[in-house]
C-alpha cells in the first residue's frame, strides 16, 4: 500500500489517499492523521513524487518518529 495526493478541496485543504495492494483507495486523510504520519516517517527516504513535492513546498510536515 502507498499514499498519494488525492486532491485539494474547496477549502484549500490537501486530502491524501491510501491505495491498497489491490488498487483500491480505502482511506482518505488529512496531513496530521497519525497513521499517515507513521507511514511518512517509515518511508521518508523514498516518498512518492507528489507527496515529496508537498513536503518540499512546506505544505506537508513529517512529525518526529516514535
Amino acid at each position: 500500500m502507498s499514499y498519494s495526493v488525492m486532491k485539494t478541496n474547496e477549502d484549500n485543504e490537501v486530502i491524501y489517499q491510501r491505495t491498497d495492494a489491490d488498487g483500491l483507495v480505502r482511506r482518505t486523510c488529512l496531513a496530521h492523521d497519525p497513521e499517515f504520519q507513521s507511514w511518512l516517517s517509515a518511508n521518508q527516504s523514498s516518498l512518492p513524487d507528489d507527496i515529496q513535492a508537498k513536503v518540499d513546498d512546506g505544505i506537508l510536515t513529517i512529525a518526529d518518529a516514535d
Partner: protein
Amino acid sequence: MSKAAELAALIGSQTALSNRNLVINGAMQVAQRGTSATVGPNGTGEGYTVVDRFRNSLSGSVVSTFSQSTDAPSGFANSAKIEITTADTSLGGTEFWNLRYSFEGQDLQSIAKGTSDAKALTVSFWVKSNKTGTYTVELQDTDNSRRNSLAYTIDSSDTWEHKSLTYNPDTAGSGFANDNALSLRINFWFVAGADYKSGTFYNGTWAAEDNAKRVHSSQVNLGDTVGNEWYITGVQMELGEQATPFEHRSFGDELAKCQRYYFRINYNGDNNYFAAGGVYTTTAAMAMLPLPVEMRAAPTAIDQSGTAAHYGSWGNGATQVCSAVPAIRGSSSKTTCAIDLTFSSLNSATGTYNYRIVNASGYIGVSAEL
C-alpha cells in the same frame, strides 16, 4: 495476610474499586473494522485493523494474520490472535514488531507521574502461545521521552497463562499532559532486531529513551516459524503494585468508549441513509455525518470500501451513485464528520440531499485515533 485484610489494604491503597482498568477493550470484544487482517511485510497492515484500540507497529519481512479469536480463557469470550504466515529466521538489526495500546494524557492524571506522589502501574493480561520463552512489555512515556520495560515468560505451550507486571513509580520528568493527545503506550513485543535489545534492559527502571534498552536480550522471535501463534486478552492497566481481577464492562460500554477513537457505520439494508447534506455543484456534495459519541478530536481520516458505486444520494426525486470514493474534509468536528461525495451529474446544484450506503460491502469509518 487474610483475604479480608488484603481487600482492606487494597481499598485503602492506590486502587479504585471501579474504573480501575485504564485500558479500553481489554477483553477484545469490539472489532469495528473487521475480524481478520494481514499484517506485514514491513508497514503493510500497520495500524488499527481488527480489535479496537490495539494496533500493530512493525518493520521487517515477517507476515502474519491478525484476528479476533473466540479462543479465550474462562470468563472471556474473545482474544486477539496473531499467527505467522511468512517467517523470518534471520532478523535485521532494525526489524521490529509490537502490538500497541495508546492512552490520552488526561486519562492518566491519577498516576501523578513526575511527582513525589507518583504511583506504580501494574499491567496484567492473559496470554497463550505455542512459542514458549521470554517476551517484553514496554511502557513508553511519549510526553517525557522516557521508557520502562519488563519481561514475562510463556512457560507452557498452548496454555492460557495470567501475567502481571508492575512498573515502579516514575518521580522524574514532568507529568502527563492533561489533554487529549498521546501520552503513554503499552507495547507488547514479538520481534526485535539487535538494535532494540543490545543494551542494558530497562527491567523496571524508568529512564530516558534508548532503543538498545527496550527489549529483553532473550526476547523470542515469534516470527521465526510459520504457524507460531500468540493470543492475548484481559489486558488491564491499573494503579498500584497488585493486579486485581479483570474489570469486565458491558459490550455497550466498551463500544461507546471505542467510538471516541473510531466509529464505523455499515450497510444495514436498502434505505441505509447515513447523513444529509448539501451540494456545491452538480458534481460535488458534502455530507454531515453525526457521530454517536464525541470523538477524542476532530476526525483525521475516513475509510470506506474502495468502490465509489457503493455510495449514493437521494434528492430531488432521484437516486444516484457516486463517481469517486467518499473523502474526508477538514471542516469536521468532534461531533460531526464532514465527507466529500462526488457524482458524475446530480439533477440540481442546490438543495438538500440524503446520502446513503447502497451496497452490502459499503461502510464509512471515521477515525480520531491517537
